[in-house]
């Protein structure tokens, strides 16, 4: 059964829930169509699954539509995705053609009576061709770090983006030179999801047993796809430096690598370098939410030594579980790991090793940082915060302009 807003009062307080209900009341039964490219798997689908029921609860009429495409389309969008992340990628003219044509085939998926159409990520961007057949306001929700986007791919996509009323980015660093409003909206986690809800301690123990991890000795954990940008090899190296001085175990847990040729390569490379029974490299199925939850709860220190990171909800998840995080000094990690307060930001393997040693040797510091980490997430990065900010986006789309807008009040 879906969670209701009232279920979040214990963390947000009655006042914040009241604010959400009031803001939604000013929008009324707005028809909001979310369009993305996958119903399952990936962060966008995960958050939509949680967000849509809450939007309904507050009186909106949200709808979620998934576009369809052939394998060639998804190959093209995967290549676009890599290029937008700044990786050198060969992209054929055919890929651009397939992208456009697939967009045309999906134009009929746009709900003609929608008040707002939200396009998530680049895949459904060409659907903006249908905007003249609607009276909707259009907004592009970009979940990707575009700060080093390949100019050829971005130049192509920008033509679509500029036909929107507004775009939404996680961070100002990811904004672009486009002639439309760019709203800033940080994502959030759901404390009631399988991945984040409290677990019985027996379940945590069972998961550790299943993966042969010793619950009595310190556990260092990184949860991420097997991807060079997450630097699992760097984490392994940092662990080795620490291991000379302190007893600990390392768990590298990732998922979804089987359908990603590069992920498989990185996974094998990590495995090939492991010569220590205290290192556990776990390739988990995409629905292993409770296992991930248990590992995060069991961890002594959580590491996210990414070289690039859009936002890093996995950091948020760990912090919510009261863990200090040692994170790469990049992207959204910097907004969560406040150096010396909720964890440590590091730039090198040496830095990571040094901070792991420091935290392993100081349980009081771990405890304090963990508590502060949880409090930061409680105050900013829970699902109702995200819902509230979405309501503000919808209000801003409905009331274009600058400055202060008065709702339910006579004009000045």
């Amino acid at each position, binding site marked *: 059964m879906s969670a209701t807003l009232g279920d979040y009062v214990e963390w947000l307080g009655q*006042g914040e829930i*009241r604010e959400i209900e009031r803001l939604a009341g000013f929008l009324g039964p707005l028809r909001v169509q979310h369009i993305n490219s996958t119903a399952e798997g990936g962060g966008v689908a995960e958050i939509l699954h949680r967000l849509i029921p809450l939007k309904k609860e507050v009186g909106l009429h949200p709808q979620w539509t998934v576009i369809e495409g052939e394998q060639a389309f998804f190959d093209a969008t995967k290549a676009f995705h890599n290029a937008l992340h700044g990786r050198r990628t060969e992209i054929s003219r055919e890929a651009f053609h397939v992208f456009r044509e697939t967009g045309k085939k999906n134009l009929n998926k746009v709900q003609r009576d929608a008040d707002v159409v939200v396009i998530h990520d680049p895949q459904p961007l060409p659907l903006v061709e249908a905007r003249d057949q609607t009276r909707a306001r259009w907004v592009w929700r970009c979940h990707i770090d575009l700060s080093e986007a390949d100019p050829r791919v971005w130049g192509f996509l920008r033509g679509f983006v500029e036909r929107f009323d507004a775009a939404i980015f996680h961070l100002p660093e990811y904004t672009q030179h486009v002639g439309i409003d760019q709203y800033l909206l940080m994502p959030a986690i759901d404390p009631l999801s399988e991945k984040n809800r409290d677990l019985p301690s027996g379940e945590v123990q069972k998961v550790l047993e299943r993966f042969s991890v010793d619950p009595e000795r310190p556990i260092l954990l990184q949860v991420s796809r097997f991807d060079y940008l997450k630097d699992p090899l760097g984490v392994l190296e940092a662990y080795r430096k620490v291991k000379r001085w302190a007893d600990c175990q390392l768990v590298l847990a990732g998922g979804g690598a089987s359908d990603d040729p590069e992920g498989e390569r990185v996974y094998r490379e990590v495995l090939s370098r492991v010569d220590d029974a205290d290192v556990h490299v776990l390739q988990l199925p995409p629905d292993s939410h409770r296992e991930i939850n248990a590992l995060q709860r069991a961890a002594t220190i959580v590491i996210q030594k990414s070289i690039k990171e859009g936002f890093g909800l996995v950091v948020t998840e760990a912090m919510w579980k009261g863990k200090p995080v040692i994170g790469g000094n990049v992207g959204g990690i910097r907004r969560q790991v406040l150096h010396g307060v909720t964890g440590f930001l590091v730039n090198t393997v040496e830095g990571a090793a040094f901070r792991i040693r420091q935290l392993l040797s100081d349980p009081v510091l771990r405890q304090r940082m963990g508590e502060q980490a949880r409090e930061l997430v409680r105050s900013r990065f829970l699902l109702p915060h995200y819902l509230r900010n979405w309501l503000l986006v919808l*209000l*801003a789309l409905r009331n274009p302009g600058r400055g202060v*807008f008065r709702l339910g*009040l006579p004009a000045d």
Partner: protein
Amino acid sequence: METRFVFYGEAGLPVYANFRADGLRSLLKGIETVSGSSIYYHFHHALFRRHFITSDYLNDFARWVWLHLNEPSLAEKLASLDPVDYGTVREAREALWRLIREAVGASESVFRVPEGEEFYFSELRSFVYPVGLEATDLESFGRVLDQVPDGSLLYHFIAAAARLGHPRNDFSLWLEFLGEEELARQFDRVSPYAYNLHQLRARMVELIRARLDHVRDAG
């Protein structure tokens, strides 16, 4: 002044203001040219977003100057500017500008920050709305104050100075109207510097309860 106190809330959505600074000079340029809403966001609203975690920095400018420009003296001066002291955003902008202008050319240790560490000016699309709660006397005021969103504290307490054009907040004004002059003065002295929003609310509710207890005991 109305006999009842109607609580309003302010909720804001940050929007990128299309200007970023990579050093002190471009920060100064930004302070000169961005909208009043952007100054409000980084200066006044920062106090609202402030938590235990950022308690060293009262505003976004001070934080960036400290962390990225390595200018601790300027950061301290910027952090010492109290948003509640400035009756208008224009005055706040001028105060910020003066401090940064003095430092340009005098103490720049970092002329240009690496890419990705720039100061991104944002501005706020704010929505002010009636919360749907009101107070008619001190007792109901204390009760409702405990139930309103944080955005109400932003609107009535932190941003009031910029809205009203003088360094006083809505709560103190209404308490004075109720004839609670001493309590109003106590509210004036509650500094958002010293508290995060959770503590700020708790402190105000505590002051009201103490006053109610006093009245009860005296009666």
